[in-house]
């Protein structure tokens, strides 16, 4: 294996802690992913990506920087990747999925802050995230109150935090605000990169990102088959890698995986027996390496067939229409696309509920597991009405609230298994 120590040192990582983090990650990956049976061959690419997640991919980022490309990090699916690519930049989703250095994070944040935010701070303060350290700009988007205030505290800790405001309703005025924010973001990107967004560069970027989305949408649709040709864990991993891999290579790898899965479907070859209980997971995003809940579910005789999540269909189900002859017109199309995202910070947010129902139906799921991160107010608040409505429409729903720690694993497993027992009786 290549020794990346020098590269990590130059990025200012704390080598000892970082080694410990990677060792833990490697072990978790082996236990959770490599132990699965009959995995598709196409997952080898993603195994490789994960084995090099802080290695080769970071080397690529460093090389890109040397070629004068800017690296733009973000924590949210509202930050348009198209705009970053249009200035020939590299967009990376910043990971915040590990219970790492929460003691450190809690010196700056209240204890009752969600794990996602704590994790972002834990990584920064512990100096262990090479993505974060490679970024020329980090975009902090005003979604929930937690993130909003956390970015104020993060500001002095990172070199170039850029705040993007987001509306909270789906009115025309709100859409205009979003477009204006995106226009300002273009200015920022043009400033840091020294490159101008043109109609051609923007169109090309839109098509690149659309291709990537089409590939994961294809994967999502294939999962309607019974027996399930791919596990929920592996599908989640693909959706997680979506955020930091090279888009062209990623798209290619996902399409190859889908080719293989389509053959599997034709041959009725699955990773779980036909008739295995099928569930949709809906709720908060699961960032790398947050695999806790899917692991508990899939080791409890059920298969996850879809994720209604930012790391999943909420993040990727809309394409951007390639429409317009000016940058401004294209920006309208981009704004239209992003304005669809039904994040729980919006009020009201009816399309999310409709889509959970639709997913359950088209993926032939028997029930929905609603996942809220502890202290994630928007999703926890929304989970009550969502559960009520789904049950009313005859879709059994289990509401879970948890964080990144493993101390509640036993209790969660009991609930998940009991929910599975309920679904089997149906």
């Amino acid at each position: 294996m290549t020794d990346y120590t020098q590269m990590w040192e130059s990025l200012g990582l704390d080598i000892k802690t970082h080694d410990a983090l990677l060792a833990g990650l490697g072990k978790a990956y082996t236990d959770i992913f490599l132990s699965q049976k009959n995995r598709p061959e196409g997952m080898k690419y993603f195994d490789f990506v994960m084995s090099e997640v802080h290695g080769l991919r970071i080397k690529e980022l460093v090389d890109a920087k040397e070629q004068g490309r800017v690296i733009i990090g973000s924590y949210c699916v509202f930050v348009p990747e198209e705009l970053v690519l249009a200035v020939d930049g590299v967009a990376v989703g910043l990971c915040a999925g590990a219970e790492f250095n929460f003691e450190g994070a809690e010196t700056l944040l209240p204890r009752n802050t969600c794990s996602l935010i704590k994790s972002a701070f834990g990584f920064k303060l512990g100096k262990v995230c090479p993505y974060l350290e490679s970024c020329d700009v980090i975009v902090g988007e005003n979604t929930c109150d937690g993130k909003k205030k956390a970015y104020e505290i993060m500001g002095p800790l990172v070199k170039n935090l850029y705040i993007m405001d987001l509306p909270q309703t789906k009115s025309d005025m709100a859409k205009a605000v979003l477009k204006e924010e995106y226009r300002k973001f273009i200015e920022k990107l043009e400033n840091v990169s020294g490159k101008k967004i043109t109609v051609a560069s923007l169109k090309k970027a839109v098509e690149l990102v659309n291709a990537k989305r089409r590939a994961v949408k294809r994967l999502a649709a294939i999962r309607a088959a019974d027996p399930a040709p791919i596990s929920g864990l592996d599908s989640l991993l693909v959706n997680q890698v979506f955020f930091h891999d090279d888009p062209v290579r990623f798209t290619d790898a996902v399409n190859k995986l889908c080719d293989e899965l389509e053959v599997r479907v034709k041959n009725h070859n699955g990773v779980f027996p036909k008739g295995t209980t099928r569930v949709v997971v809906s709720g908060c995003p699961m960032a790398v390496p947050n695999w806790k809940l899917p692991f508990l579910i899939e080791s409890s005789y059920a298969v996850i067939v879809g994720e209604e999540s930012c790391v999943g269909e909420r993040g990727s189900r809309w394409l951007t229409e390639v429409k317009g002859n000016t940058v401004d017109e294209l920006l309208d199309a981009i704004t239209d696309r992003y304005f669809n995202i039904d994040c729980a910070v919006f009020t009201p947010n009816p399309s999310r509920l409709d889509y959970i129902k639709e997913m359950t139906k088209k993926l032939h799921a028997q029930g929905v597991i609603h996942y809220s991160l502890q202290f994630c107010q928007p999703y926890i608040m929304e989970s009550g009405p969502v559960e009520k409505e789904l049950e009313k429409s005859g879709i059994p729903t289990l509401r879970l609230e948890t964080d990144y720690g493993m101390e509640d694993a036993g209790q969660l497993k009991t609930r998940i298994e009991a929910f599975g027992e309920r679904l089997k009786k149906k």
Partner: protein
Amino acid sequence: MRFAGIDIGSRTIKLAVIENGELILSRKIVTSHDPLGTARELMADTVFDRITATGYGRYLIKGHLSCPVITEITAFVLGARFFSDSCGSILDIGGQDTKAISLDSRGDLCKFEMNDRCAAGTGRFLEVMATVLGFTLEEFSAAALSATRAEKINSMCTVFAESEVVSLISQGALRNEVALGIHKSIVSRSAGLLKRVAPTEIIFFAGGVALNDCVRILLENEMGRPVFVPPDPQIVGAIGAALSASEEV
């Protein structure tokens, strides 16, 4: 055929054997530091054709007997129906869990809620509080029933409630009034779970805490619904597991 069910709880292990739809054996034993050894002891001379395990230690047994497992939640549904065909709501307060369960019109599991991660408001909570007040469990319930007013206990956390109780006592509060306050706090929490999940019908009350008269009476008052406690409320899960063993084909 004889069907056995073993329920490995955090405080007690229960064994039930069913033959021709009749309960022919029921036993329980304190879990101890060695649940597997204790379970073996409990089953030592028992004859059965099939067994199903439930409770938080279900996988421990599964590893040694290669028997099927079901969750406590389904076990309580099956066990409650053994006692009452028309059962629609179940409350189980055990050693470390509280569960509220509702059944659908066919008697199958519908909704359920459990307490989160800690032992707040469970049997263990009552045990600790009884000890702090210097009562046995029987005395504790009787003392609470004898009180005419209750001290308010705000904390549901076993650790915080303990300091709260110690502080009330040091301020001269009456022991039986504190005892009533503790019982009330556990009931209001359980009632909250029940109202969310199982808002109508008779409440089938199971688990070790159902042996506590004060909790049962307060629960009846709080919910305004009749509460039914089966003859041996601790064995319900084991009976459910045994019934599940009889359903296996």
